[in-house]
């Protein structure tokens, strides 16, 4: 996935990047940087200004329990996604698996299922009196299934619908891997598993780590799946604290602990020189030979089919089942159109705003050196540590107290989206900028164009595909976004996401099915545009 590229270290040193940043770039970058940092700064101020009861809350056994649960879930989901995704990545890129091309698309598809939709599907399919239990009751008279709510459900949902992060990262790593290295290892006398472990795995490892990091951050920030599966983590605790008691100090304090957690994780993963490595050799890279699976292709196919059944067919089937059931009972479809239009409009506006905000930062990080450029890179990277619920909470505070004109407006929501999705957009843009060699811009300068003219006539046309990719990515993630939308939407505004959440939360499964399906469909379209860019 494109957003992974933001986790790569800056392009290998070209050595000749200018230090002085023109105001054309520096001023917008500073504004955006401030917009990212201010909400969190405000949270700190609020939490610090609170009384001793906040400290009591933070040191309470309940907070410790939440911390433990959050960490346990993040660890379990990360481990299981890696175990699931690495073999899948190998099967679909490095072997003669029948239909490998199709499997490459299908195995990435679960990404379009938002976690709360996944949660809703798993709850209604595997929960008590769910579809599976009804089926088993009819077949074998089974009356009780093990309880899926709580940890097992949250773990299952998050594993099923986030493993593509690891899959796509590892696949990108495998694609960039020079097959000659494996061959060299073999000519040096290493074979089979040993060659893989000593020559391939060390190079793949950074990509596995990058994907695993995304999954861990996603899990810590996830609100939809854990609230659907009724497993209390930081995000749900913050939400409950805020909604139920309007205890803003307490919510702010918990939010800060969560940010500290994600920030620590991100910082720990950010050891210099350990990011995805780049091909050192010169000369054209060859396409790697495919490993013949032989009779092993049957279990391999079975595995791929199994994953697809559970992560793609099951959600779609369950949603369709509820939709048809609802239609049969006279559930009106019409109601879905308004939230759909709202979602589309918000997604499009967010894509424009976020990409525009990300561009100066990406330009700064990709084209300049010196402390400002470094800071821009850090800010973009740090954005990954900001969970939606935290950004939303901070913006609720800021708009309510400082700029009441923006309180409960779509504008505040768009600011939240821009802050949340800045890393993804900047990552895609930076990758596109890195592919434009600076000598092209320099050539334009020596041919008589000013920096602004060069940006317009050379840089922008060349990064247009990257801009499109960034916009598609932001569009997709905005439509799926739940917690910030829940907290910041003006009264009466409903999106597909909030509609699924409220309908499913109240047990109107049939009513949640249509918007959920629509959401999955629209997300797939965005993914399709991204996938076209990924395939060479």
């Amino acid at each position: 996935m494109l957003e992974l590229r933001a986790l790569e270290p800056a392009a290998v040193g070209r050595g000749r990047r200018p230090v002085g940043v023109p105001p054309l770039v520096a001023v917008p970058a500073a504004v955006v940087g401030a917009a990212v940092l201010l909400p969190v700064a405000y949270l700190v101020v609020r939490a610090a200004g609170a009384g001793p009861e906040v400290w009591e809350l933070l040191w309470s056994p309940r907070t410790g329990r939440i911390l433990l649960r959050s960490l346990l879930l993040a660890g379990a989901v990360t481990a299981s996604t890696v175990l699931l995704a690495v073999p899948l990545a190998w099967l679909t890129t490095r072997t003669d698996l029948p239909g490998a091309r199709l499997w490459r698309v299908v195995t990435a598809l679960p990404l379009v299922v938002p976690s709360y939709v996944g949660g809703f599907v798993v709850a209604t399919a595997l929960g008590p009196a769910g579809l599976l239990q009804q089926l088993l009751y009819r077949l074998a008279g089974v009356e009780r299934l093990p309880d899926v709510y709580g940890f097992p459900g949250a773990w299952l949902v998050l594993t099923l619908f986030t493993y593509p992060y690891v899959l796509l990262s590892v696949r990108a790593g495998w694609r960039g891997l020079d097959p000659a290295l494996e061959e060299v290892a073999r000519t040096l006398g290493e074979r089979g598993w040993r060659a893989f472990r000593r020559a391939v795995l060390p190079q793949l490892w950074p990509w596995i780590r990058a994907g695993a990091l995304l999954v861990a951050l996603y899990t810590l920030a996830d609100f939809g799946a854990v609230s659907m599966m009724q497993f209390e983590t930081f995000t749900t605790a913050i939400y409950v604290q805020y909604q139920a008691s309007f205890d803003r100090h307490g919510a702010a304090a918990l939010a800060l602990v969560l940010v500290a957690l994600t920030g620590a994780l991100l910082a720990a993963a950010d050891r210099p020189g350990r990011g995805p490595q780049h091909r050192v050799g010169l000369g054209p890279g060859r396409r790697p030979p495919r490993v013949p699976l032989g009779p092993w292709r049957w279990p391999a196919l079975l595995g791929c089919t199994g994953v697809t059944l559970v992560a793609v067919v099951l959600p779609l089937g369950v949603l369709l089942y509820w939709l048809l059931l609802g239609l049969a009972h006279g559930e009106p479809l019409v109601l879905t159109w308004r939230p759909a239009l709202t979602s589309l409009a918000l997604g499009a506006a967010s894509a424009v705003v976020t990409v525009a905000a990300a561009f100066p930062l990406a330009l700064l990080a990709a084209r300049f050196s010196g402390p400002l450029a470094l800071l821009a890179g850090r800010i973009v990277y740090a954005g990954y540590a900001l969970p939606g619920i935290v950004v939303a909470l901070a913006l609720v505070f800021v708009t309510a107290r400082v700029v009441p004109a923006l309180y409960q407006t779509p504008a505040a929501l768009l600011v939240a989206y821009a802050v949340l999705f800045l890393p993804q957009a900047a990552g895609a843009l930076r990758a596109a900028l890195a592919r434009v060699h600076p000598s092209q811009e320099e050539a334009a300068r020596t041919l008589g164009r000013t920096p602004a003219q060069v940006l317009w006539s050379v840089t922008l046309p060349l990064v247009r595909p990257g801009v499109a990719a960034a916009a598609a990515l932001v569009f997709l993630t905005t439509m799926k976004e739940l917690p910030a939308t829940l907290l910041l939407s003006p009264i009466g505004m409903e999106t597909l996401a909030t509609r699924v959440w409220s309908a499913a939360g109240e047990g109107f499964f049939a009513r949640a099915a249509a918007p959920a399906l629509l959401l999955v469909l629209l997300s797939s379209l965005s993914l399709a545009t991204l996938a076209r860019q990924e395939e060479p």
Partner: protein
Amino acid sequence: MSAVAIRCVAVGKSYGAVQAVRDLDLTVRRGTVLALVGPSGCGKTTTLRLIAGLEHPTRGVIEVGGQVVAGCGYVVPPERRRVGLVFQDYALFPHLTVGENVGYGLAGPRRQRARRVAEMLRLVGLAGFEGRMAHELSGGEQQRVALARALAPEPVVLLLDEPFSNLDAELRRALREEVREILHRSGTTAVFVTHDQEEALFMGDEVAVMRAGRIEQVDRPEDLFHFPRTRFVAAFLGRPDFLPGRVTPAGVETEAGLIPLHPPLPAGTAVEVLVRADDCDLRPGGAATVVARHFQGPQHLYQVRLPSGRTVHSLQKHTVHYAPGEAVTVVVDPGHPLVCFPVDGPRAGEGVLAVARPQRRSACG
């Protein structure tokens, strides 16, 4: 306009603690081609970028076309310097056609620009290529488009940064002749950066050898080749051997016998004589041994080991044969002056020309 196209005075450029260019003085006269050559990392590309305005000097003054473009805290941006730059990777704009690439730096009415583009493409032998895209061209064609694009706005100077290093040897030789011809025909002042000494000697009206951020010597190619002023320049050009010897009244006494040349140095001075393969002749029998023979078409290059273990090279006609292992004598009698480098003393490493002193001139006169 002034007769000097580029003048650099005491120019320095540091990146933090690293001094890429130090105390560089350089003058390029109008209409001449200066080749800037040196090992990689010697600061030649940085020098070029300083002239283009893509880097700012930390010290010194740079003039282009008689006007100060950098110095005294004042810097003219690259777009107002009227320099053309041809990059090693060509840096063609992939989103533009060949015609749009060449016309990118032109102003004025459309028809006039189109005429200039056609004229430039004709100059580089790509007439009618206007509508192609850059990626449809071969490497050599892309390089020619880059050249046409840089020349189109009639720059005061053209800067070329290792323009042929991405081409294969054959194309490189052909294109090098063509570019030299184009530069001379259009009367362009150019600075040509390369790490290839042969290319530098071929392309430059003058050649500047750089080392560690400084210019070691600037001269006409012939002078540079035959009278290198430092051992570094000598070692860099023409793959030389250095024969240790001692100055005597009769000539320079070396392991390969007496060389009848007389450097203006006191007798007894320890020197190294710069000998190239064409200065050394071989005779059958002796204390030296043929180590290897390299076939070079019309000639053979012999590698010969002297009794001390030092090797020298000798170029022989293809009709002359020595087998590896054969005993030979090395005779150095070039018939032209050679350069010696005193090994120590105040002039250590400095090139001193040793000439054949007319025999017993004082006795006759």
